[in-house]
């Protein structure tokens, strides 16, 4: 099976075949043999060409979060079919409306922008308090505030859409 993977700016083609407990992998013309065991919730022991890695993997659709001893990597993986269909590449949603969501449960302390106000990329739009910290959430793109869905003082859940920028 062939996959397309993106890590940062780099794009990889990965070919995988499994024989029993062992995976044969081709990537950039190099070949790897991987032996994989599940060690705990989202935790795996990988032996890749006899190199040992304890890896935490968590996925959400294409997006894989991979934690190694040396750091955390965001890898997007698409099956060849999906890859050809152009799912990969620049996130589509950046082109139209973008939601500013609360990444954690908390309470809205301050709304910094009004509807119709212009925002720059990276500019703060709303402040949410969680774990005794005030956290400024920023607009991921330049645009105009289309909608504000919450009020100051309101409790919000993780993933809740707070502001929409167009």
């Amino acid at each position, binding site marked *: 099976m062939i996959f397309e993977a993106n890590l940062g700016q780099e794009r990889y083609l990965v070919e995988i075949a499994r024989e029993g407990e062992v995976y044969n992998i081709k990537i950039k013309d190099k070949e790897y043999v991987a032996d994989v065991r599940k060690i705990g919730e*989202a*935790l795996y022991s990988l032996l890749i060409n006899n190199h040992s890695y304890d890896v935490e993997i968590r996925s959400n659709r294409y997006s894989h979060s991979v934690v190694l001893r040396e750091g955390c990597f965001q890898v997007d993986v698409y099956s060849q079919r999906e890859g050809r269909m152009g799912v990969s590449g620049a996130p589509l949603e950046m082109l139209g409306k973008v939601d500013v969501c609360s990444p954690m449960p908390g309470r809205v302390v301050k709304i910094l922008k009004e509807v119709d106000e212009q925002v720059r990329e990276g500019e703060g739009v709303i402040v949410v308090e969680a774990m005794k910290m005030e956290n400024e959430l920023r607009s991921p793109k330049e645009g105009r505030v289309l909608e504000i869905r919450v009020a100051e003082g309101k409790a919000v859940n993780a993933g809740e859409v707070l502001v929409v920028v167009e």
Partner: protein
Amino acid sequence: MFKKVLVANRGEIAIRVMRACREMGMGTVAVYSEADRQALHLRFADEAYLIGPPPSAESYLRTDKIIEVAKSSGAQAIHPGYGFLAENPKFPLACQEAGLVFIGPSAESIRLIGSKLTSRRMMTEAGVPVVPGTCEGVGSLEQLGDIASKVGFPLMLKAATGGGGKGLRLVHGEEELASAYRATRSESQSSFGDDTIYVEKYLDCPRHIEFQVLADQHGNCIHLGERECSIQRRHQKIIEESPSPMMTPELRKKMGEMAIRAARAVCYYSAGTVEFLVDGNGDFYFLEMNTRLQVEHPVTELVTGIDLVKAQLLIAEGKPLPWKQEDIHQRGAAIECRIYAEDPDNNFLPSPGKILGLTIPAGPGIRDDGGIYEGYEVPIYYDPLLSKLVAWGSDRQEAVQRIRRALQEYKIVGIKTNLPFLRKILEHKAFIKGEIDTHFINRHITAGTMEEVPAALREVAVIAAAIHAYEREINRTQQPARSSQQKISRWKEAGRQAFLHQNR
């Protein structure tokens, strides 16, 4: 000796205090909020009492309820930990009225130190050098102008009753003075209910060096050497060490004497910390005193061999200090990293949630003071400190090597933490050389944790993700045919669990 001690706190510090109590044969009483029924400090204690809803104002800050629990459970003393009620002078008074011992300094010492202007005055009178500036509130903008021309720019405007990085402003030049004056006063009023502000000279790239003191109720006072806490992010310490890599025996002696003088000036007893800023010339200035156990107290414990919580308990019992200054010896070096539930790749946003997997480092020279366990859900209501990882080594180099090794072993699965950010600091050449000051992070460390990773490691990440995707793909196409009799490979099981997880 106390038979039973109530710990009016939660998280790692509550457990730290209970460990000391248990070792001394004292019973332990926990208090907990509705959000903390499954918290480790409750599980750790001998007894536990519910004191209110999740917000701290309705639970961990409720002096009345906590004292009620202490009395009904038969506790004789209350340890406040740090934060919450630890530096509120009303709390020791309330304890006293209820016939309970407060494990900490007197209410009067806390009050004197809590007012920044008062303490600046008292320190100046005692001959302790303070950061140049005013010891009186600034009365008007005109007066501020006069002061500014004497102190010089850049300078700091600070709330007299402030703390925790709030109510302060850096002023670079005359043109910023008026707006900063208004803003600081207004923030000070709204945050602390008092608009008194004062001026301090701004020290460029100082080092934050603090001295641990221990004083008993019989007039004995010693210091236990310094801690360097220059590695800060947004005025928040994240890495601390002892001894400081810039310290000399002569300077230690001088600063230690000043720390003792500062403690004596407010008739201090219990464990306390005198914080100084040290500039590039080795000149040092009193910044403030913390009238409680510090988060970073373990580095001092590892280097001196003295258990500070047990010392607090002894002092609170009225016993004399069992050590004289000449009994205190620093041995080797210790470094602490604070492990927070926050996402360094996303502007350090807090990251509460369930801890699905937890591997705590261990082995030679490693101490972990934690408050979490596998399966624990980190609540949204409290400080994001999960644990403190501390390493001891025979010298600073070994301590650094050990904490780096331990940071690699630390695995917290399920929530984001600052572990990758800490690793990055610990691997920086300037840190390894001990070339640090309070601007270290701004100068040297970018938040993102992905760059500069060897290509081979990136490929490993890609391979791991691709295998994960492969199994999900296989799993998905075979799903209709699946039956319970089918033997499922370990990985498939993994894939399915991950799948269930995202759909939850």
